[in-house]
């Protein structure tokens, strides 16, 4: 199974188990933003199968009968007989949801719930997911941006006090970041230029574009006094000699 010791899973999407699905298998007490599929997969066969199969493909092979979707499809997920699940890939959040589980091979439950409007993820499910922000980016603390504020302020202060030098820290104990105040030569005189910041999403896996909301929060975190129109996000490279490393996400505060 992916996630076992020694095998590192590289996911291109989120996997999430809805509260109703956890209730279906008697694990409702573990539901919420702290639920970790890799950690809990071994506690039920459908979770093992969900992790194993949907980490490889967001879709299944057989659509769930009686459940028709206008956008995307709901697919069956087979665990050992007679356990069955239903999954759906939400493109807007890049997440495959395990929606429901039956332990008696009874697919009509899925259809009944769909008709009652109780099959798809609820606002509470999305709130659980939002609290994890986006595990793909390795930021897990829901208060990350508040926690990281002092680190970011200190990082900027150090960068401004050390023109040309690279300064670094781990923002909010989670996100490695570097900063550099550019020094340009004008008429053979060194002049302070733009400020570059690079954050490193170690779990980013080069698979998805950062959501726009995360752009805004990073810009506000790293350059709180900069006008939004003066901050370029996700483009460019660090000044020499560092350039850009593959895991970097670069922001630039144009000060001149």
């Amino acid at each position, binding site marked *: 199974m992916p996630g076992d010791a020694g095998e590192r899973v590289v996911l291109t999407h989120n996997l999430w188990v809805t509260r109703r699905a956890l209730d279906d298998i008697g694990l409702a007490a573990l539901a*919420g933003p702290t639920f970790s599929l890799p950690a809990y997969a071994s506690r039920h066969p459908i979770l093992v199968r969900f992790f194993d199969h949907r980490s490889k493909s967001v879709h299944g092979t057989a659509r769930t009968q009686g459940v028709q979707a206008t956008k*995307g499809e709901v697919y069956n997920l087979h665990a050992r007989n007679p356990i069955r699940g239903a999954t759906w890939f939400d493109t807007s959040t890049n997440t495959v949801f395990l929606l429901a589980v039956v332990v008696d091979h009874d697919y009509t439950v899925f259809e009944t719930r769909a008709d009652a409007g109780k099959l*798809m993820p609820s606002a509470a499910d999305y709130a659980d997911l939002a609290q994890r922000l986006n595990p793909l980016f390795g930021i897990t603390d829901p208060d990350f941006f508040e926690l990281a504020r002092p680190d970011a302020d200190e990082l900027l202060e150090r960068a401004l006090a050390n023109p040309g030098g690279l300064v670094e820290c781990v923002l909010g104990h989670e996100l490695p970041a570097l900063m550099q105040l550019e020094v340009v030569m004008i008429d053979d005189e060194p002049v302070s230029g733009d400020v570059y910041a690079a954050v490193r999403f170690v779990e980013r896996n080069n698979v998805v574009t950062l959501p726009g909301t995360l752009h805004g929060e990073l810009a506000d975190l790293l350059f709180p006094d900069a006008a939004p129109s003066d901050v370029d996000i996700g483009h460019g490279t660090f000044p020499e000699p560092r350039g850009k490393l593959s895991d970097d996400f670069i922001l630039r505060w144009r000060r001149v």
Partner: protein
Amino acid sequence: MTVSAWATSSSQLVRGRPASDPLPRVASGQLLFEDGSTAEVGDDLIELLRVLLGSGLAGRRARVEVAPELVTPDEAAELLEVSRPTVYTWQKSGVLGLVQRGNRRMVPMADIDAVREAAVGRERSDRLAEEARTAGPVLEELDYREALHAARRAGGEPAVAVVRRAQRAAQIRAAADQAACVLQSSDAG
């Protein structure tokens, strides 16, 4: 400095550090798990690492074995504020682990912590979901940055937190609304 250790049997105890190297003085440590979660390492574990790394592990391999802290079903029921039958039910379903000690079905304390943390997280999510019911539209990227900037100038971090929370609530509402519209009547096709 960050001390990181992957919990696999074949990996180095402390990444990038030869076993023969004693651990330098450290102020704090952090465990980085494969799922992205982290845990602060206390003085006890730092001391353990220091002993292991400083006592000549070179050429040998060692594994740390720890025994989970266990509580009785009665204690688990009290800690979780549920009945003892619920504890047994949860042991059967997998919510709680089961470690047999004689005729007692002991519960790992870590599982009790996990259930408590889940409950706290659910409450927080439920509040967010409630806010989402009346949330406005999701702000586009530049509009959101402008809103954060304006809030910071007007009211500092507390005002920024309000904008951030409103955006999150709006996103939750938008996602849930979209999910609710995904299904069409089974008669329609």
